[in-house]
């Protein structure tokens, strides 16, 4: 197990290294000059532009810029900042000249927002998805199953922003039951936090809940058709025991992998939900930074997203081996 973990961690570091190098290269191929954007919308003269490029380190070759970035992660970096230089302590992911903040503090600032949104949404879509999927599989072919199957088809095809705008229309405009959402920190007032996040949670989870319902239903039907279930039934085990002890365990194991990865990707990828509800999360940060060609922030968010997914993969593999003893970690 220890050797396995070490191997995985080393592999993860290589993945992150390649990922950050790729983002650097891609950004250089993209149109637009970050210094131009920093300089101002009009009449930025060549000499002024050059001075800003020097200040931002953009006049250096790309491999040197990337090297400084790598060194900064382990040793910290110093940036020019007027009368006094700004020190960015290790692990320094860079400094955003456009927002005047170190990238790490930008990420830490946005993380709780995205986590609040995604964890809440995840709980809803797993509970609803697995619940409906199991019920639907057990009532296969009956009216309830047909209703659920049709509903999942609809849920699967509705875009997030459409659900979001409909919810806002119904709950905030017609019924006025909820305020227009805005992020409230969990540490401040948990009730207010939840009240503001209900609509984003629901919008985020509609599509995933539909997908999970279908996955659970299929997986459950497959497991129920397997030999060992037939054997348990032949032994005379009660139907509820067969389902709860044996069928569910087999059926839900594949969902562990999907669920963990989905949770990880949504953390930095819930862009539409975040921008629709005005939640200042990581997805929104990524979109704004790409638009503003704010390279340090883009690299920071990408590395964070990559790290989260790599970790989620490891967690998924470990959980899988615990849930399914036929799989051994090696």
């Amino acid at each position, binding site marked *: 197990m220890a050797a396995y973990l070490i191997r995985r961690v080393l592999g993860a570091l290589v993945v992150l290294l390649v990922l950050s190098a790729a983002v650097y290269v891609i950004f250089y191929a993209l149109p637009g000059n970050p210094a131009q954007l920093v*300089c101002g919308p009009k009449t930025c003269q060549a000499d002024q532009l050059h001075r800003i490029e020097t200040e931002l380190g953009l006049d250096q070759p790309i491999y040197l810029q990337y090297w400084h970035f790598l060194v900064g992660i382990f040793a910290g970096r110093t940036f020019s900042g007027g*009368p006094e230089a700004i020190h960015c302590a290790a692990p320094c992911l860079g400094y955003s000249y456009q927002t005047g903040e170190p990238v790490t503090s930008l990420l830490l600032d946005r993380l709780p927002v995205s986590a609040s949104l995604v964890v809440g949404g995840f709980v809803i879509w797993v509970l609803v998805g697995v619940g409906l999927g199991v019920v639907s599989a057990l009532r296969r072919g009956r009216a309830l199953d047909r209703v659920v199957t049709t509903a999942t088809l609809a849920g699967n095809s509705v*875009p997030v922003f459409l659900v979001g705008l409909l919810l806002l229309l119904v709950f905030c405009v017609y019924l*006025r039951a909820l305020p227009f959402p805005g992020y409230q920190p969990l540490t401040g007032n948990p009730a207010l936090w939840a009240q503001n996040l209900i609509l984003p949670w629901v919008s985020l989870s509609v599509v995933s809940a539909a997908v999970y319902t279908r996955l659970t239903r299929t997986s459950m039907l497959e497991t129920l058709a397997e030999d060992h279930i037939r054997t348990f039934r032949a032994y005379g085990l009660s139907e509820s025991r067969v389902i709860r002890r044996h069928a569910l365990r087999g059926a839900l194991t594949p969902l562990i992998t999907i669920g963990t990865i989905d949770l990880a990707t949504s953390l930095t990828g819930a862009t539409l939900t975040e921008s629709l509800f*005005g939640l200042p999360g990581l997805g929104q940060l990524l979109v704004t930074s790409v638009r503003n060609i704010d390279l340090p922030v883009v690299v920071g968010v990408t590395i964070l997203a990559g790290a989260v997914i790599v970790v989620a993969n490891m967690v998924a593999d470990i959980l899988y081996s615990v849930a399914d003893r036929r799989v051994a970690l090696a």
Partner: protein
Amino acid sequence: MNRTPVLSIAAGALLAGTLAACGNTGGGSSTTAFDPKTCRGGTLEVLNQQDITHLDPARIYTSGGGNIPSLLFRTLTTRNRAAGADGAKVVPDLATDTGTPSDGAKTWTYHLRSGLKYADGSAIESGDIKYGIERSFSPDLPGGAAYLRDWLVGAKNYAGPYKDPKGLSAIETPDPKTIVFHLNSPHGDFPYLATATQFAPVPKAKDDGVNYEKHPVSSGPYRISTYQKNKKLVLTRNKHWSRSIDPERLACPDTIDITSGLNPDVINQRLAASSGNDANAVTTDTDLGPAQLSQLQSNPDLAKRVAKGNFPYTYYLTYDTTKAPFDKLKVREAFSYAVNRNSVINAIGGSSLGYPATTFLPAQKSMGYQPYDYFPAGKSGNPAKAKQLLAQAGYPHGLTVTLAHNNTADDPSGPEVATAVQDALKSAGITVKLQTVDSNSYYDTLNNPKTQPQLAVAGWGADWPSGGPFLIPLFDGRQIIGSGGNFNTAMVDDPAVNKQIDKINAITDPEQAAKAWGELDASMGKQAWYVPLYHGKDLALYGKNVKNAFVSDWTGVYDLSQLSVK
């Protein structure tokens, strides 16, 4: 990001429903009349998409001191807070007048009002204004306009006080109440430039470079209470400010609560619903969407809550007039006759967002607008006349050109507008090939003569409402820059025009200068160096409790310093 267009269409459909619902709930603006004496109190909510770019006055690029910045920073002069054309005038702010020119408008002298204080109670002195300007030259604090660099004597290569503590000799402060500027050529527009936030005082002792924007020292009616970048900015009263030392700003609300990072459709949905705190809400960066526009006719309550304005802006077709075929006047005239301004305006969302342009200057008094239409294309173009002109120019079988546009849907330089131009030119026998340029680099491509497309859709807005900043960058031959940052995309270099520009620059009376700019525009129009398409209009909603939401010709949107929610 490329999902945005779909989002706005779907949102539009939904919002149509929202607004219909609001019509039933009644409402409309509060009926009690606005009175500046009793307008104080309450919280004004501002719902925006983007956060303010910077809170450092050196780094803000904005005209008239800006809407939000003007709440925190006072400048030497400022825009007059009045509706329509009156609002396009310059008035004194920290200074006692709009400036005394001497040496043929090459020297400008200002005296400060007495009793001026920062939010920390310390006195504002002329040296602080000089220092504020100097630090805006630091490459660590870019973002401001380049006029100071161009206009001040010996400022071209100044690198700011951190690297060069001696400062700029072009700015003198003989005593703490006086400041004198020395320019390298006459500039009658200097009082307009002095409205920019670079003219806000910065106490040297409090300046810590890039970190200054985390705690800028306020000189305006409000100070920063809390600030979270891209989330929230809360402003509360500056106890050391009073109307007796600032006759321009009313500063009615006790608190101004600015939320950013919101979706434009949601902003309009909230302003239209105007429920709860949103009754006190406004926006400074979100125009009405197509969905609300279609509802205005049938919903008088909503129509009452729309502030209509015109931020001076012109959209036009541009080509290099030194290159074939556009070096021929007849070809340029043919293009001017061929365009269909109606279809272009439809492409940007209809007549509530723009009005046809046959002049380069927008139809505003302070710009010196003089109506002319030398190549009457009517509403939908005159292809017959265009064909005739092309034949005379040696193109009896028409010609083929490439038109560049960006890849943002519904953008003024986007694919829809390009297609509208393409269709109109086709009827005149001109075949248009479209060239898509990424939006991020559209203006970089257009404003670099090495990459400039043959034909492009472009827009130009004023840094202040006078003919100078509107015409000079596009028509002055000495402004042509061989590398990037060239706005004279027509490559016009006419000695008579250059001479006239210098002459008008020296005029210090705004009304006379306006008249002269209008005459210059009317004479240059005959050359068809650009093909004006339309001028922009601005529409913004405001909440039911919001009063005094007038719009000036300078900003095109209501003024946060004058609004009341009481």
